[in-house]
């Protein structure tokens, strides 16, 4: 089984409307790279100028935040689901 990346509605305009994208990556980093090379316009919304995953984008492997799994180098196995969820901050500060 492939790895499935679930795409939130707001991102689907970059994925030709697809709610799910399959890939064959072995790490989260590879999965994101595969996704953004297939859909280049999505690239700047996934990573910032320093190449880090954007601060207000949360990435989950199945039900777990990848930051608890060692970050984007954590390994994937067949059938895993990768979720991209924009962070819901209320906005505050200056």
């Amino acid at each position, binding site marked *: 089984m492939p790895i499935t990346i679930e795409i939130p509605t707001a991102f689907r305009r970059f994925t030709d409307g697809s709610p799910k994208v399959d890939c064959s990556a072995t790490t989260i980093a590879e999965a994101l790279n595969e996704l953004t090379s297939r859909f280049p316009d999505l690239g700047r919304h996934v990573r910032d100028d320093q190449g880090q995953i954007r*601060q207000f984008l949360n990435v989950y492997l199945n039900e777990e935040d990848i*930051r608890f799994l060692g970050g984007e180098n954590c390994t994937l196995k067949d059938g895993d689901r990768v979720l991209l969820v*924009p962070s819901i901050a*209320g*906005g505050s500060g200056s």
Partner: protein
Amino acid sequence: MAVHYRLRCKECGKTWDNSPRSFCEDCFSPVEVSYDYDALKKTVRREDLASREFNMWRYSELLPLSEDFAPTGAVGGTPLVASRKLASRWGLQELYFKNDAVCFPSLSFKDRVVATALAAARRFGFETVGCSSTGNLANAVAAQAAQQGFDACVFIPADLEPAKVLNTAVYGARIVRINGNYDQVNRLCSQIADRFHWGLVNVNLRPYYSEGSKTHGYEIAEQLGWRLPDNVVVPMAGGSLIGKIAKAFRELVTLGWVEAKPVKFFGAQATGCSPISDGVKRNLQRFEPQKPNTIARSLAIGNPADGPYAIKLIRESGGWAEDVSDPEIVAAIKLLAESEGIFTETAGGVTTGVTQKLIAQNRIKAHETTVVCITGNGLKTTDAIAAEYPATEAIAPRLDAFEAYLETQIGTTAPATVSAKA
């Protein structure tokens, strides 16, 4: 009342019409409500408030409400309690507790945010409202949804305090218990908001919801006689409230309602869930998420969405963040109750305990005006302190039985020396 606000992306600055959205569709960063202050200056003056009732709606022009909005009930307008005992004990000249433990209708500051969120829900045509919640928010959504005729569906971690679950259930809300912590519940709610046409107050209505927090700040300034304090100690869960109090103070300065002055913002967390205070102390560019393990369930958010903004604000204001252990939280709840007659939930124990720490660290000084935010009621988290008060043995309804009791408890029955003091 003409509408003088719209949504604005906090990162790229793009503006968006008023709508149920929580992030910028261009850059996917958070949006917040932004106001035309020049227009507001012409719309409302500070003097206009004098004739209005003391609740959050007295600041209506400064909130994101529609032109035809009519309040359905009084929310906010809580006491600013001038401390005598703790001020004296801690050596402070001016110490206040802003007491949202008695905020109506559901006894926490979350009533304020739900009030503005449901105003937005009605405007955008939602029939069902909901939230992800650590308890207080679910109480507030359920109560105000019942009052205003919305269907309510709330999502909570399965192991929440029984009193908080009951305080939601009683209003007839649908409660969905999730096997997971708050951060997992919150992530699920983001997905639900993406799928269903529901007004989730802290997801797709979040820009409007979080503006309600400003009224906590407006009230502090007004109750101090239209002046700003030197220090504010604020509990942090998602990290939104502290920024909204800062926004409230900035707005009052912009409108010319208070004199500008530097205010230090101090953030308070439980040590068992302290990603923001950890980020402040270690000067991290990005906080590290944590798995919460604390009795302060209402602050148990390990991945605080507004954490980056809270860290920036605290550091730029010259404030600091601290955290307290579970035993320190319990001790602080007791201290506040015994000293000031305020029974707060665990979050208030956190701010009180952290204040004590900040004074000991000389970050809060004797001559300054300090306000400590109490955001919830102790009746909701009695489990956290029940072990402190084991049941005592009952006595017979006779005077000799009471005298025998006094003899064993304080070693005398002489009326002149008998005191109730423990």
